[in-house]
């Protein structure tokens, strides 16, 4: 039930908001109310643990006897991502009131709610075609919002975004059609069973077709052409959703719809690992050189997500909690930075870093929040970002020291650009007149405050995120050590992935054990290296 609500209610809410008409306030209240209810629902989803709906036949796919099912399911990872999309949409609506022109808020909120519905659908779908439907559908409201409420270059940015992502998912559509036509099933489990019977080569081709769509969406170097402009030109609340929730669809897709479905060889994993690391370094360097506040944030997001993708392809057992915590932490911190940068843009009238400054003096509360958000984004210990990046480094170490070192360099780079950003925006001499009419609203400030609080909370108790809350094994009776993090579906199939890797004579180094006796065995392994 909760699953249906999370996917369908946003559309209903969007319709209702579109129908209320009248002044902006009723639309504002209604959209805010529905987003808040959805956020509560997503928290309930997390608390409730794994759940699936009964499959409903949707339509027959032409050219095959497969019937597409409306089938939703939640497990730890996607429940948290749904939480991210809900909470960021709520924040976007809060900030959208002042970020949109007078009287335009209604249409804006309709777009945001529709976008929320498509994102939730993509995260929760267990049917491949259903997933693809939502995956494609989310481009439309995003591009429309971008083209309607963005900056100066909004039209071309939106066009670029739409064409890039839609073209990027074309190979996925073909591969999906091929698989469905051949196997006659559309659910994840069915496709997985079908793919086990295929040769590695076929699987690799299909996986790459899938992967391109996700690499474009995330984005991963060299498929990032649309990203900087799109994030920079979008209205800030939309940028926050794009980076905080929508880009996660790409990472999520890689995790669930590529890694869990296909059995691939080691070359593939190594390539993707290095592609992820290259993205991380590239994003860091570009952010360091950036002059546009939102572009800096865009590249910083790219770098973080590159790190997440690199961690995924280590296939280390630590990877699931690592990626999950990193994604949740990044969603909240990058989201709040984008939202605040939008306010800063309105305060100073520019996005150029060199023309901003001194906001901590003229707007102390804003300055405090921006500084705190920036520092939290630096992955200081005690914040969710640190837990995520530390666990990612641990996962990278399972592959080798060199990837870890590259990951470590990214940490220094992130310090370099983030401090530059903080300094440029809030420190130094003020470049604008003191009597600035733009203020950070109370509600807006409290949203950011809540985000920062959550980041600290997750940093001190990351277990909240990665613990499994499935009802049949209540965690009260299970000692913490035995709680298997991450979802069963992905873990099971990942185990299969690992198995198939071992048959193709590859070894994944997993030198991590707790028992003292196995330390010895490990020691010999590492010493022999």
């Amino acid at each position, binding site marked *: 039930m909760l699953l249906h609500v999370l996917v369908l209610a946003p559309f209903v809410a969007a319709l209702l908001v579109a129908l209320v008409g009248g002044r902006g306030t009723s639309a504002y209240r209604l959209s805010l109310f529905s987003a808040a209810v959805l956020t509560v629902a997503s928290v309930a989803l997390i608390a409730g643990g794994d759940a699936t709906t009964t499959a409903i036949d949707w339509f027959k796919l032409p050219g095959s006897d497969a019937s597409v099912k409306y089938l939703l399911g939640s497990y730890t990872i996607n429940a948290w991502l749904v939480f991210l999309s809900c909470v960021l949409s709520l924040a976007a609506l809060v900030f959208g009131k002042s970020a949109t022109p007078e009287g335009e808020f209604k249409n804006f909120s309709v777009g945001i709610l529709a976008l929320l519905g498509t994102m939730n659908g993509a995260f929760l779908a267990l049917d491949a075609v259903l997933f693809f439907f939502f995956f494609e559908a989310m481009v439309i409201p995003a591009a429309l919002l971008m083209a309607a409420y963005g900056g100066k270059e909004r039209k071309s940015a939106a066009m670029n975004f739409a064409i890039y992502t839609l073209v990027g998912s074309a190979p996925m559509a073909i591969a999906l059609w091929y698989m469905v036509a051949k196997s006659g099933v559309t659910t994840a489990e069915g496709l997985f069973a079908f793919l086990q019977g295929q040769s590695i080569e076929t699987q690799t081709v299909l996986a790459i077709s899938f992967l391109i769509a996700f690499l474009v969406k995330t984005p991963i170097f060299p498929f990032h052409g649309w990203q900087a402009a799109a994030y920079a030109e979008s209205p800030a609340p939309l940028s926050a959703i794009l980076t905080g929730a929508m880009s996660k669809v790409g990472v999520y897709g890689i995790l669930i719809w590529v890694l869990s479905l296909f059995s691939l060889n080691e070359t593939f994993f190594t390539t993707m690992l290095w592609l992820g690391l290259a993205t991380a370094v590239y994003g860091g360097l570009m952010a360091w*050189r950036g002059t546009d506040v939102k572009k800096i944030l865009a590249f910083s997001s790219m770098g973080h997500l590159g790190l997440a993708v690199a961690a995924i392809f280590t296939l280390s*057992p630590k990877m699931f909690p690592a990626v999950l915590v990193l994604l949740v932490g990044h969603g909240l911190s990058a989201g709040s930075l984008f939202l605040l940068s939008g306010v800063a843009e309105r305060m100073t009238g520019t996005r150029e870093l060199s023309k901003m400054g001194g906001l901590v003096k003229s707007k102390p509360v804003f300055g405090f929040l921006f500084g705190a958000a920036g520092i939290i984004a630096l992955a200081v210990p005690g914040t969710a970002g640190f837990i995520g990046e*530390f666990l990612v480094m641990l996962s990278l*170490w399972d592959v080798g020291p060199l990837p870890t070192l590259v990951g*470590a360099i990214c940490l220094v780079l992130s310090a370099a650009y983030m401090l530059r950003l903080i*300094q440029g925006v809030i420190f130094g001499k003020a470049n604008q007149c003191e009597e600035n009419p733009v203020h950070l609203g109370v509600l807006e400030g409290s949203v950011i405050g809540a985000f920062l609080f959550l980041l600290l909370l997750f940093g001190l108790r990351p*277990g909240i995120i990665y613990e499994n809350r499935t009802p049949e094994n209540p965690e009260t009776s299970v000692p*913490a050590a035995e709680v298997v993090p991450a979802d069963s579906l992905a873990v099971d199939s990942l185990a299969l992935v690992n198995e198939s890797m071992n048959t193709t004579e590859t070894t994944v180094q997993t030198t991590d054990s707790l028992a003292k006796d196995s330390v010895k065995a490990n020691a010999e392994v590492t010493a022999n290296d």
Partner: protein
Amino acid sequence: MTNLPLWLIPLFPLIGTVVLAAISLASTGSKKGASEGIVGGLAVLFPLLAFVSTVVIGWNMPTQGVQETLGTWIDIGSFKASFGFLFDSLSRIMLLFVTGIGTLITLYSTGYMHGDRGFARFFAYINLFLFSMIVLVLSDSLLLTFLGWEGVGLCSYLLIGFWNADVSNCKAANKAFIVNRVGDLGFILGMITLAMVSSDLLSYRELSAFLRDAANVELVNILLPIFAMAGLLFFIGCTGKSAQIPLLTWLPDAMAGPTPVSALIHAATMVTSGVYLLARLSDLYVLLPGVMTVVVLIGLLTAFWAAVAGLFQNDIKKVLAYSTISQLGYMFMAAGVAAFDVSIFHVFTHAFFKAALFLGAGAVIHALAGEQDMRKMGGMLKKTPVTACVMIFAFLAIIGFPGFAGFWSKDLILERLYVSGPMGPFLYMMALLTAVITAIYMGRLMVLTFFGKYRGGEESEKHIHEAPASMLIPMVILSLGSIFAGFLWAGLIPGANLFEQTLAPVVGQAQAAFGHASVHVSPWLFAVLGTIAAVVGMAVAWKLFANRRIPLPKGSSAPEGFGATWTFCFDKIHGIVISAFRVLAWVAENVVNRFVMMLQWLVGGLGELLGDFASGLQVAKVRLQMALSLVGVIALVLIVLVYGGLL
């Protein structure tokens, strides 16, 4: 006897942080800001409470220490970490002087920061710093220590850039943070290396137990390369935090912050955390003679280099900054020859006299309304006698004048260096030479500041005034400490080795394991040689600087926040590394990005071309199109009729 829970100690400054931050944010609306009395009182109260609870807990501490686990932090099956505190003799000493000196300096700051717009904010940062520092020394595992480790780095960043309207301060702060980040990477990678063996080893107790356990000898030998790597990586972390070669350039720039900050963070407490970490991991380091050699050589080079650099500074705070680096070098030398107790002892005495020196310098700067250039000082002895006395006592302590605190600790270091092994005499000679240079540059500082005639303008001379009581009381207490703290371990007096006994349960076994060569030498000889070094240095300084005309500075003498005037080549080396990354970034933007964009436009252009071609095929006549479609239908029908379908 029941004891207080350990988490009380960090809790107090944390409450202080939250309360003061709330006051700071709430008072932004008002014109005047919050009442300084209330804010100052709160700011001093919380560190004081932390100090009191440390004393109470420390008084009742059993010999083997207290360990408390608060809860799980990370638990992902193959990696576990928990929040836990360990209160043993090492953390007791560190905590006592961190909270004690922290309280004193907070009290001093209430005077120093009087009238500043960010009064409450400043004390919120200071409390946050104390919280982080307490967590750093009190934690029972490396991961939690790292929380404090980055936390103090963060507070250092915030406080260096406290006057953030000036971008150069921000740049100094950024530099401090980023250079520290580089060191922190060493820490993180070290932790990961240890966690590769087992995440349990991140706990200090488990690590020591594992390394000391006789049953594990064979295993430890197999793992030695891993441990050596971890040890080296942790040492990189220490060089960042404690400003050793090669990561030392940030500390002189860090003097851009308010002077109490320099005293607290960049002299007494934070920068010594590297030494603390080495002592904490003593069981690990004694197994790694190669790494220890690196430590001692880095310490030696740093001590010598920073002492020389100290000779050339004109900014009073920068002299002290280089002197701090140099003294930290001494501490690392001691740690490098496995004299961990001595290195901690020097940390302890250094905290007193260096804090006193900085606070004294702060009082001088305060008296001169922000003037930091020593060439514009002089004759302050008569104008600010109390400050001068404090500075003189601390000066005698730092150069190692017999009886003062620095004498005892430095003497012990020199002695341990001499007996450390074949390299001993060489190390000893270098350290002694450094001691002479120390006396020279410190003597120069004293002479230029307090003796001779005032060299500033007539106008500013009238405004010179002694500091208020809230500043003088902490200074006097610290100067008393720099006189008497040394007697806790006076090598020449039999039985006066309380300090050594205290630390023995923590580092004693490790030091015994390292095995000192049993060269027996008379401690009196070392004492005499050390005294001679101090006296010679003082004499040289007097001769060189007392009666010479000091050239007045040209142009502005405003404190330079960024870029020390004389930093030898390390800023250059850092500059090269940074430029390399800049080039990389330039390539990423202008070559790689351009190339990707070009490919993108190429594909897009190709698509457009195809579209143009296709639209060129369109005929603009509706009727013609209809006729053509008819032709098409006919053609299809014909094909079907003739061939029976295409397939």
